[in-house]
């Protein structure tokens, strides 16, 4: 006879029963944690735990990334002469094509001027940047696009700050510990960015499509349905009050195609981001002017 499950008799529970009880307890614990975290929204009771874990694991991630940087950089050093020559040919072709476009198409030239102006605005308004390196990248199995950078509150990085790099908008800070911060990339499905078309200044919302790395695209829904975005138009951030979470005028991407679904009357533009999210390394976090921290604050322009 098997002993009863709830019996407090002299028979000890079999290992199977004990395992089943442990399973039930742990599943219950998991469900409790999930409920606590999912219900609370912002200000979850798990935030202190998250911060504590981040304070331990974050520096470990930074240290590991630094320790292995010589090895992870080897890929670049080992590229063959042949590969490099191919790169040069490709770049030369690209260059020629771009020069031709700039020279022949006045439309493109005005757009370029506009983009130039926009980037100059960024420089003129003098956003202060804290440079940081990406040390860890969230696995795609978690179905979210997040990275860890090696600058945290000790460098003045706080929640809801804009993160960009030389190419354009990268994302925003969603949480920060003392020495690290977690950045939600704009290609994540949870990310919504206010965007503005470069040519006609129409505003809209960009949502990440979360898709796999090299095909990362954004979907742009314009507020005004009657406007058709033109191909290759540049989209920049529209900015929010006090630059939280996004400052204005940061280039995001280019209109790749416009899809109009027959079911809805609205049109959706597909945006190819300027930033290559598979090769993120040095990024800049936009911090308020006069931020004091343990790393230098760069003013104006993108970090180099």
């Amino acid at each position: 006879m098997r002993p009863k499950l709830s019996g407090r008799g002299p028979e000890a529970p079999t290992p199977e029963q004990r395992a089943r009880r442990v399973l039930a307890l742990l599943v219950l614990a998991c469900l409790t944690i999930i409920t606590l975290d999912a219900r609370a929204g912002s200000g979850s009771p798990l935030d202190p735990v998250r911060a504590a874990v981040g304070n331990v694991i974050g520096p470990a991630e930074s240290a590991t990334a630094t320790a292995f940087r010589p090895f992870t950089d080897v890929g670049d050093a080992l590229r063959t002469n042949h590969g490099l020559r191919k790169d040069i040919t490709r770049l030369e072709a690209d260059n020629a094509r771009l020069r031709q476009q700039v020279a022949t198409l006045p439309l493109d030239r005005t757009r370029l001027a506009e983009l130039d102006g926009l980037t100059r605005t960024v420089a003129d308004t003098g956003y202060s940047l804290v440079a940081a390196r990406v040390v860890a990248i969230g696995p795609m199995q978690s179905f979210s696009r997040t990275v860890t950078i090696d600058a945290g509150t000790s460098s003045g990085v706080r929640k809801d700050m804009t993160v960009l790099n030389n190419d354009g908008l990268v994302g925003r800070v969603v949480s920060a510990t003392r020495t690290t911060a977690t950045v939600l990339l704009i290609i994540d499905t949870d990310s919504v960015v206010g965007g503005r078309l470069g040519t006609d200044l129409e505003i809209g919302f960009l949502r990440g499509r979360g898709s796999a790395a090299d095909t990362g695209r954004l979907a742009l829904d314009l507020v005004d349905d009657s406007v058709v975005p033109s191909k290759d138009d540049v989209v920049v951030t529209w900015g929010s009050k006090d630059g939280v979470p996004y400052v204005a005028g940061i280039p995001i991407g280019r209109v790749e195609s416009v899809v109009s679904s027959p079911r809805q009357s609205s049109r959706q533009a597909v945006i190819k981001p300027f930033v290559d999210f598979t090769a993120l390394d040095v990024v800049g976090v936009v911090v308020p002017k006069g931020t004091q921290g343990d790393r230098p604050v760069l003013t104006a322009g993108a970090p180099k």
Partner: protein
Amino acid sequence: MTALRAGALTAMVCLAVVAQVVLFPYVAIDGVVPNLALVLVVVAAIDRGPQFAALLGFGAGLLLDLAPPADHVAGRWALALVVVGYLAGRVRQDARSSTFTAVLVVGAGSFVGTSLYAFSGVLLHDGGLPVDQMLRIIVTSVLWDLLLAPLLVPVFLWVLGSLRASSERAFHESVRVLR
């Protein structure tokens, strides 16, 4: 000595989680990396049984949920890995005999774990992706885990085994001292 063993296990889980987000992105396929923590839990299940593996799965999953750059609802990976640990522990008698079977169990565990994680996300409306993309990611991650399992299973088995051996030796020694 149990404290030392627990410390060593914790260090191993941390190592797995850190390697997963720091080093493996360089070889990621479409952003999918091998799930070292999951493989560790499955190997623990084969070596020690469902109870131990479920506990380890809870710890490892919680670390995956809380360690940066995780941004999803906490407890999702914990739930997935608890179930994977328990299930893998139930079939362990067959998997203990050969590495090949163990690798298959890793593959099955990877499928169950990642699917459970995806499913909990759908229920919670947390970071959803279109179903076809989710399926592709799940398949890729199963393939990754299958690919690395022949290397990882013997290593993890050896580490777990030597941890147990050292703790048993310490136990016998303490018994001898007490006598």
